[in-house]
C-alpha cells in the first residue's frame, strides 16, 4: 500500500554504510517503522498525501547519535560514501526542510537531550534534541523561563529553532531565537566539532551567525546555550477593537516605537470573528515585568481603539497551542497552510493587501486571513493563513505559494521565521540578490560533497 513519491538514489550503498556506522558504535536502524517516522517534515502537502498511504520520500536508514562525537563519526562515514544526511529535530518544520528527498541517512538529533541550568549566569545549555515544551517546563519548575514560545513549542527542538531562526509568541519583547542564543556547539559537514564559550559578545563576525537560520546546510547544531530569565511576576492584559487593520497597525507602531510589550497581535476581521467572535479588527496586548504598570498606562492612554478588556487575551492564551483545525481540515480534502513575511512600517499595508489578494485570487482558495504577529521598531511580521480545495491540491498549493512569494518580493522579506527549505528555495536568489552566490559558495566550501541536507535552501537539485 505504501507509496513513495521520490525514491532514494542511495539504497544500494546503505548496507555497507550501516555496517560501518554500527562498527563505530552508532545506533542505526533500517526498520520500516523508523524510516516512515523520519520520512517528512510538517509541510501540509505531506498531510493530504498521508491519507493515501503516500510519503514524499523514505530515508534508507535512520541514525541516532547520542553526542557530538557520534554526529562527527556519522558525517565522516557519510563523506566517505558520499551519501546524503538529512538532519531531523522534531520534524515540525513546515517548509520541507528535513524531508529526505535524496534518500540516504536521516539523522535524528533527539538523543542529544541534556539540560543544564546555570542559575548564576542565567543560562541554560541544552542538547539540540531537547523538546521545547520539556525545556520550558523544567525551567518553570525552577522559577525560570525561556520566553521563547513558538506555537510549535511542544513539538520542536532547540536545534531546530536555531536552524530555522525560529520566533516565539513573546518575541516582540524578548527577541527571536537569535536574541536568546548565546553560543553553539556544531559539527561541520566534514565532521569537525567546533564549540564557542558563552560570552555576551565576541570579536569579528559572531560564529553563531553562520548557523542561525542555516537550516542544517552549513553544519549540525549539537548544543545551544540560551538565555533564561526569572518568570515575570506581574502582567496586564488588554484588548482593543478597531474598524480597520490600518488603524490597528498604526496604533501598534506607536506602542513598539515607545516600548516592547511581551505580546502584541492584530487579527484581521476574519480571524477576529473566528477567535473572539468580534466584528472588527482585534488587537491583543500583554505587558509583563517590573514596568508592567507603566506600560499598561501607556497603552490605555495612547491606543485609540475600543477597549475590550482582558478576555480576548485570556481566550487567545488558552487556545494558543491548539492546532487541531489542521486535523479537521485535511480529511475533508482541504489543504491548509500559513505564509509569514516581514516588512517595514512604510509599506506594511501594501504588503498586507497585495499578498492577501494574491492568495484569494488563486482558484480554489476557500479562505485567506491574516494576523500581525511579531513587531519591531522598524516593522512587523504578517502571518497569512489560507485554505483551499481543488481536484489537484498540489497544483493549487504551489500556485498560491508562487503568487504570494511574487507579491512579497521587492516589498517584503519572503520569510519571517518558517525558513526556506525546499518550498521557498526558488525565490531565495531574488530575495538575497548578490548575497545568494556568497551563501552558495559557502555551502560548497563547507560541504564539498553536498551531502548535508541536499536539495534545500541554496541547492535546487533533488527537491520535492
Amino acid at each position, binding site marked *: *500500500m*505504501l507509496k513513495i513519491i521520490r525514491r532514494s538514489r542511495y539504497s544500494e550503498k546503505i548496507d555497507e554504510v550501516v555496517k560501518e556506522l554500527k562498527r563505530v558504535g552508532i545506533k542505526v536502524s533500517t526498520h*520500516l*517503522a*523508523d524510516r*516512515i*517516522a*523520519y520520512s517528512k517534515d*510538517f509541510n501540509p502537502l505531506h*498531510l493530504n498525501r*498521508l*491519507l493515501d*498511504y503516500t510519503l514524499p520520500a523514505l530515508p534508507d536508514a535512520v541514525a*541516532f547519535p547520542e553526542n557530538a562525537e557520534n554526529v562527527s563519526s556519522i558525517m565522516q562515514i557519510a563523506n566517505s560514501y558520499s551519501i546524503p544526511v538529512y538532519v*531531523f529535530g*522534531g*520534524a*515540525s518544520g513546515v517548509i520541507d526542510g528535513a524531508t529526505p528527498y535524496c534518500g540516504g541517512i536521516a539523522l*535524528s538529533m533527539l538523543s542529544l*537531550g541534556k539540560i543544564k541550568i546555570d542559575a548564576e549566569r542565567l543560562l541554560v545549555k541544552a542538547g539540540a*534534541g531537547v*523538546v*521545547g*515544551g*520539556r525545556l520550558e*517546563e*523544567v525551567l*518553570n*519548575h525552577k522559577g525560570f523561563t525561556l520566553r521563547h514560545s513558538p506555537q510549535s*513549542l*511542544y*513539538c520542536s527542538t532547540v536545534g531546530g529553532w536555531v536552524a530555522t531562526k525560529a520566533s516565539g509568541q513573546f518575541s516582540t519583547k524578548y527577541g527571536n531565537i537569535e536574541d536568546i542564543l548565546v553560543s553553539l556547539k556544531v559539527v561541520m559537514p566534514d565532521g569537525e566539532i567546533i564549540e564557542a564559550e558563552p560570552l555576551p559578545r565576541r570579536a569579528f563576525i559572531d560564529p553563531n551567525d553562520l548557523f542561525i537560520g542555516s537550516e542544517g546546510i552549513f553544519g549540525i547544531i549539537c548544543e545551544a546555550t540560551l538565555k533564561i530569565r526569572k518568570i515575570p511576576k506581574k502582567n496586564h492584559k488588554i484588548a482593543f477593537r478597531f474598524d480597520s487593520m490600518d488603524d490597528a497597525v498604526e496604533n501598534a507602531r506607536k506602542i513598539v516605537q515607545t516600548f516592547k510589550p511581551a505580546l502584541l497581535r492584530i487579527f484581521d*476581521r*476574519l480571524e477576529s*470573528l*473566528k477567535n473572539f*467572535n468580534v466584528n472588527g479588527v482585534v488587537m491583543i496586548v500583554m505587558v509583563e515585568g517590573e514596568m508592567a504598570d507603566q506600560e499598561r498606562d501607556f497603552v490605555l492612554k495612547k491606543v485609540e481603539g475600543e477597549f475590550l478588556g482582558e478576555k480576548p487575551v485570556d481566550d487567545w492564551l488558552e487556545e494558543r*497551542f*491548539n*492546532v*487541531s*483545525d*489542521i*486535523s*479537521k481540515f*485535511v*480529511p*475533508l*480534502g*482541504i489543504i491548509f497552510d500559513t505564509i509569514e513575511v516581514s516588512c517595514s512600517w512604510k509599506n506594511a499595508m501594501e504588503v498586507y493587501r497585495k499578498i492577501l489578494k494574491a492568495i*484569494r485570487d488563486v*482558484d*480554489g*482558495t*476557500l*479562505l485567506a*486571513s491574516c494576523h500581525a504577529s511579531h513587531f519591531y521598531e522598524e516593522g512587523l511580521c504578517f502571518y497569512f493563513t489560507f485554505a*483551499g*480545495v481543488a*481536484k489537484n491540491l498540489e497544483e493549487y498549493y504551489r500556485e498560491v505559494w508562487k503568487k504570494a512569494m511574487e507579491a512579497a518580493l521587492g516589498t517584503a522579506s519572503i520569510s519571517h521565521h518558517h525558513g526556506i527549505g525546499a518550498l521557498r528555495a526558488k525565490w531565495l536568489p531574488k530575495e538575497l540578490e548578490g548575497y545568494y552566490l556568497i551563501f552558495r559558495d559557502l555551502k560548497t566550501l563547507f560541504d564539498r560533497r553536498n551531502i548535508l541536507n541536499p536539495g534545500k535552501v541554496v541547492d535546487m537539485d533533488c527537491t520535492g
Partner: protein
Amino acid sequence: MFSNIKWILQATSSSTLKTKLSLIKEALPKVGKGDDIVRCMLCPNMCLHVCPVFDAERRLTVSPSVKSRLAYFSSGGEDVGDALWRCLPCNACKQACPTDISVNENLIDERNKICELDEEPESVKLAFITHESMIRDLEKKFREKFGEFEKRDGKLLYFPGCRTFEVAEVIRSTIKILDFLEIDFAFRNVLCCGSYLKELGYLRQFREHIRNLKDILGSYEGVVSNCPHCVKVFLKDYGIKAIHISQLIAGKIDRFKVTELSSDDPDKPDKADKLSSATYHDPCILSRDLGIVEEPRKILSELGIKLKEVGYNKKNTYCCGFGGIYPYIDTSMASKISEERRKQLIEASQTILTFCPICKKALDAKDITEVLAELV
C-alpha cells in the same frame, strides 16, 4: 473552528463559484471521515513533550502522532514491528491533547487486528507469556512469604491486583488498615483484572477474562483495590462498582489522626515524626483517569506530613514507566523512565510516597498504605 457558523460564511464569502462547487464536490463527501487515529497522525505531535516513552527512547517512531501514523500504515498492510506496543497507559498525551485523544487507547484496536491475524511481533507474544508466568509465580511466592493471610469472606472484595502481590507489604498494610477501619471485606488468591490482555490487543481473550472474573466479582457489594489499573478496568470495562483504597481511606481519615493514634506505647513510636516531610508521586491512572489527586494530599496533610511537591505533579505527573505492557516489551526503557522520575522526585525529597503498587516498586517508594499501617 466548525462551530462558528458566522465565521465560516464570512470566510468563504470571497471564494469563487468554482471554488464553492469544488468544496461541494471534493470536501462534502468526506465529511465524517477521519477517526482519532487519522486526526492524531495529522497533528504535529503537540504532546511530544509529555510522552515518557518518547522521552526514554528519543525516537520519533514512538512519539504519539507517529505511532498513530504507523497504526494507519499498519492498517494499510505495512509491517511496523512492535512500535504500536511501545506505549504506556499513562494518558499524558490525552491530558495535553486539545482534542482529548489517548494514543494508547486508540492503538488497542490496531494491535487487536494484528493479534487476530496471529501476526503480532515476538516481543508481544513474549510479553503475554511473561505476564502469565508472573501471575503463577506470585501466588506461590505470596503464600510462602505471607502465609498468615488466609482467604476470608465479606461484603466488599479486597482485590489487591496481581502486581500488588509483587510488593506484598502493601497487601499486609492494606489488610491491617481495613481491619482497623472495621470493614467487612473478603480476600482471595492472586487475581488479575486482565488489563494486560486489553493492552496487548488480545481483546477476545480479554472479554472472556471479564466474563469469568465477573462471576466471582458479582457476588460482592463492590471492589476495593490498591491498583489504579484494576479500578479503571472494573469501572470502564466490567461496569462494576470499584474504588481505589485512597478513596476509602480519605473518607475515614479522621480515624488515623496522629493525635488520636499517638499513645504511650513504646512499640508505637510516632512514625509521623519520622515522616515529617515527603514528596508524593501521582500515579498516572489514579490522577488522570480516576481524577484522584486531592485525596492522597488530604491524607498526608491529616497525618501532619509536609508535602514537598515535585514539579511534575497531579494530572501533570510523570509516569513511573512500569504500568501496562511496556515493561514487558522493553524493560530497559521502562527502567530509564523510572530512573528519570525518581531523579525528579528525589530532588523534592528523599522520601517518596505513592498510592500504587506498580509505581511503588518502580520508584522504590513507600505506599501510603504502609505509612498508615505503621500508625495503627
